[in-house]
């Protein structure tokens, strides 16, 4: 066990955890931030996507010891009033079915729009291909990202 000082959603947090504990479980079990989801544990589904210094990463495969001073953002910290342009687009298009993968989809899309504010459909598909949606809401996810980009 070791003590880690983390910056999560702009807040300093102290966590006691084994060095190999994935950030996913630090967020979910140690810090009660349940918005980041467990899907596969091997960075294949994207349900656990968070931002590390603005880049989308799979929190299931980032041990807490590798985070050090990086700024972590989770779905809970994406916006203060659920008013991120993507969250608004998700409401406009009523995207989710079961909803489980959606936080990861939104976090991945947010990182995309951060580096490319007017992505083509090809660029959206390439960026989002790592995020599985078992319900098959891909049509609506793509439409929501497109309309979010047009509202930037």
């Amino acid at each position: 066990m070791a003590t880690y000082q983390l910056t999560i959603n702009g807040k300093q947090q102290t966590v006691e955890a084994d060095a190999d504990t994935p950030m996913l479980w630090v967020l979910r079990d140690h810090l009660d931030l349940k918005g980041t989801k467990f899907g596969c544990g091997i960075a294949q589904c994207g349900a656990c996507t968070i931002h590390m210094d603005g880049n989308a990463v799979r929190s299931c495969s980032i041990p807490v010891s590798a985070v050090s001073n990086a700024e972590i953002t989770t779905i809970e910290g994406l916006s203060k009033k659920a008013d991120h342009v993507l969250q608004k687009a998700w409401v406009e298009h009523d995207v989710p079915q079961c909803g489980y993968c959606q936080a990861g989809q939104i976090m991945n899309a947010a990182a995309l729009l951060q580096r490319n504010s007017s992505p083509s459909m090809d660029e959206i598909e390439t960026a989002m291909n790592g995020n599985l949606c078992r319900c098959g809401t891909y049509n609506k996810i793509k439409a929501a990202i497109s309309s979010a980009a047009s509202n930037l």
Partner: protein
Amino acid sequence: MTVIKTKVDRRSFLKTSALAGGGLMIGFNWACSPSAEVKDPASAWFDINAYLTIADNGEVTIMSPNPEIGQNVKTSMPMLVAEELDVDWKDVIVKQAPLDNAFPRQVAGGSQSIRSSWKSMRMAGATARRLMIETAAKEWAVDVNSLTTKGGYVLNGNKKLSYGELASKAVGIEIPEEVTLKEPKDFTIIGKSQKNVDLDEIITGKPVFGIDYKQEGMQYAVVLRPPAFGAKLKSFDDTEARKVNGVTDVIQFGDKVAVLGNNTWAAMKGKKALVADWDMSGRLEDTPYHDSEMNKLLNKRAERPSRSDGDALKAMASADKVFEKTYEAPFLPHNTMEPMNFFADVTGDKVKLVGPIQTPAGTRGQIARLLEKSPDDITLEMTRMGGGFGRRLYGDFALEAAEISQKANKAVQVVFSREDDMTAGTYRPASKYKFRAAIKDGKLTGYHLSGAGIGRNNWVRPDWFPAGGIENYLIESSYVDSNITTGAWRAPITNFLAVAEQCFFDELAAEMGQDAVQLRLDILERAKNNPVGEIDYEPEKMIGVIKLAAEKGNWGKAESGVSKGFSAYYSHNTYVAEVADVIMKDGNPIVKNVTVAVDCGIVVNPDAAINQIQGGVVDGMGHALYGDFSFINGTPQASNFNNYRLIRTKEAPTVDVHFVESLNDPTGLGEPSLPPAGGALANAMAKATGNRLYKIPFVKDQMVFG
């Protein structure tokens, strides 16, 4: 006008009570007959206890009775109540109802939630509305027939009283024996798209799913299960597991070993550190064995046919040609995005259960038997589910949680890893279908279908299309016994039966030199006008969706570089036809778009309905393309998304949805767009590439598609 009797015994019909902060709570307990057209459930007198509260500020809280797995009933069922209550949807708060014996069918399955509650949920709203009118009539001392309602108000000429004002005065007011339901033309909520009531929670990461549940002090349990179906636990060594930081206990139950930890990661690490010795001397099945057993069954007659009209075998014997094709599909895991999990806290006589389950009442009953307790001592809280697809009809994970909690004397949440989820499934069983058609003088004179699959004997739907449309018709089903756990998987049986059947009709039409759509229409005309025997579908509705899909999907019109595939299927009381457009790009087929026509009666929540239909098409095509799951020595050969392929966003087509306009009572949408999808795709791919597809997965390994 639809008039519904409120209750045979009116004394127990309606209980009203004042809320502490002002306002009214209404408990209903009524019997209500659904439409006579509905054949199933047969003796349908529902006895429902629903809860509705009207606060003094006019806010209405509606308890949504059924489990939510992403089919959106938590929104659409309360919409039915709100419509008849005549309130603004923005004033409605929806809450998940608890498991309560008074509800008739707290199940998510079979696409039946809306169909089975269409009258009863509306009646709840209509009865409460009538109560508001009766109360207002008393206040104003006027005749009830002079009053109307709108948007949460009772109107009397220029005067109005809000439901909030009336609520506290309504206690004890009697309502008449009959209430009137709205005509569809007067609907203001039904038929208008309403957003998912949990949308804000989902997009901000609120803990709404089972796996998010936490109780102070609870332990996380990760379970080591036998590595193969048929294997048994001989012994295990937990020395290293107990050394893992955060591991608090190790508990054996049956052939399984649970590692408990104070966080999920600790329990997962602890499980990996267990050393177990397995007895592998039992019956260990593998895929080649299943294949050869199913092939044997397809080549012999079933003990009893599922249906026989005329004499199909004689028609084959006297045909100019017998056209025969066989199609096959593997087992499939469900792979809900939220892995199986459940919370249990067994303390003394009481049991508290929380988690994602499609069958809460049945699961509570099983746990009561397992723990030898009364169901009355067990509470079960239904959480939102990260997908169901049939996997959460089976409560094995909830039973595990209950047993571990009892043995450990602690509150526990069982969590499956993805590997646990994929290798300890209740799989869609593998199946094969052999079709034979007798062709004489250019006409279809006989039809013979043999279905065979693993674990159960229900591989055919003998009274659905093409039943009634072919003079000589023989349908058979047989099965291979197995120790692999199998069960319902979204659109059970038909999720592959439809693919096979719709591929066969496409090939048969080509063989007969006919248009694929016209062949289906010819059979349906016969079934409609002069059916051979009894049928259990409406040919007219099937013709309707076929024609609509053909029109909207430009069937029969040449589009440069586009190959079209057709498919139509009736299931779960809903009719669906699809046209898939496939193009070739760099030598690879790509499905670009799918046009879908649907007859589901009245469309309750259009945007959400489109979402279900699009999802079903993507799901059906994804599993037809990539679903690949086999066994060697009882051991599943795929375990996570690195060796099991699900359809991804690049491969998913756009899906263009068209509804048949209808005033018929609504039917379900959670499943019906899935069965026809694989057939439309295969038929289009055959045209694009020249290769017919007979075996799922259509695409092996990491081959490019899309």
